[in-house]
């Protein structure tokens, strides 16, 4: 759980920083997307690094889901008779929404891949145009896309708020919860800026 989660957070940070390049204009963002595919050339083929990274991410996601599922199954087994009076959440709300939150984030990632990677759900089919795809995606007329992205990212924020702290705890380090909160606020803000800027016309 902790190790695969750490890999995924590493990806999220790089992804967020990459997204922010959109503020430097269309050519800068598109050439960044092009560069992602050239990493490692000529030793690696075009898009070679991207595919290696995709395999690593898939393995990490698989491990993360596997660990979460076995913990959930163990939890079910450990309490065969449920309480008649549903226990109220006394610890952290974020901690108690990890399982459903994780499922929602996974569904979001599927949607997101169909949207901005394969472009099946995006108005811009040409995969050479990253800037065009993002700006068309979050155009004011498609406010519901922005809304969905916002909900998913906030859910991710909750997930990380508990997850970051919990990962340190699992690996045996005492870790301040405020730092975990800061990490998730930073990631949320970094991710949300782009769709909201497009929607409100700051990026055109």
């Amino acid at each position, binding site marked *: 759980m902790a190790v695969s989660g750490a890999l995924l957070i590493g990806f999220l940070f790089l992804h967020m920083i990459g997204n922010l390049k959109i503020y430097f204009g269309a050519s800068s963002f598109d050439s960044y997307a092009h560069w992602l595919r050239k990493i490692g050339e000529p030793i690696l083929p075009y898009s070679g690094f991207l595919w290696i990274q995709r395999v690593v991410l898939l393995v990490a996601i698989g491990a993360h889901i596997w660990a979460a599922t076995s913990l959930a199954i*163990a939890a079910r*087994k450990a309490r065969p008779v449920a*309480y008649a009076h549903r226990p*109220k959440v006394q610890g952290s709300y974020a901690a108690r929404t990890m399982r459903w939150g994780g499922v929602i984030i996974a569904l979001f990632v599927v949607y997101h891949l169909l949207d901005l990677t394969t472009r099946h759900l995006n108005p811009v089919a040409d995969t050479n145009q990253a800037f065009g795809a993002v700006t068309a995606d979050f155009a004011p007329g498609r406010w519901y896309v922005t809304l969905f992205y916002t909900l998913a990212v906030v859910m991710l924020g909750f997930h990380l708020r*508990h997850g970051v702290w919990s990962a340190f705890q*699992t690996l045996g380090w005492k*870790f301040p919860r405020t730092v975990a909160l800061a990490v998730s606020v930073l990631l949320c803000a970094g991710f949300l800026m782009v769709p909201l800027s497009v929607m409100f016309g700051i990026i055109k």
Partner: protein
Amino acid sequence: MKLHLRVWRQASGGVRGEMVAYEVDDVSPDMSFLEMLDVLNERLTLEGEEPIAFDHDCREGICGMCSLVINGTAHGPQKATTTCQLHMRSFNDGDTIDIEPWRARAFPVIKDLVVDRSAFDRIIQAGGFISAPTGSAPDAHATPVPKADADDAFEAATCIGCGACVAACPNGSGMLFTAAKITHLGLLPQGQPERDARVIDMLHAHDEAGFGGCTNTGECTQVCPKGIPLASIARLNRDYRDAVKRA
């Protein structure tokens, strides 16, 4: 005060149980929660009914025998307090109170609200001890212990092994209990010889007993009558990591 109770009744381990409603009149706010049940039990006995079985011993908050999940919360609404030290002034006239046993596969119901907590004994048997001959009490400063370690060890040693952590945990995990013992023994010089074997064996016994895995949800510390901190679980994980590395 007049109260409406709904209490888990189950004649024995193998049979089905159910929530049964009881009315209790004339409850004084100064009664403890268990005294309120005593009053009900006296009436049930006089009426020829089977009294409600529940665990208790010291009624001073120090032995760890009392249990009860009250309105969904282990040991009831008052923080850092065992059920025996909870008083009826924490409730209002006319309240409905649901009373259930600890719910965990590792803590099977014996009767009504009484569960078998010997799974904790098995965790202790696996490593919750030191083998150094202790003899009579040593001189106060014969073995120096850093103040911070002594404080943390004492804090962990206040665990009374009641099992509220398991009852409250959405995973049915006994990690806070196990971590309290690891912290208490692992921080003191006398606990060093078995330190590595202790954490490995106790965790193994914990999993064998059918407790779930810890996901750091923190519900356990919220209900712990002794306020054992979650940081003790980080310490257990660190001890485990180091023990595996050295093994």
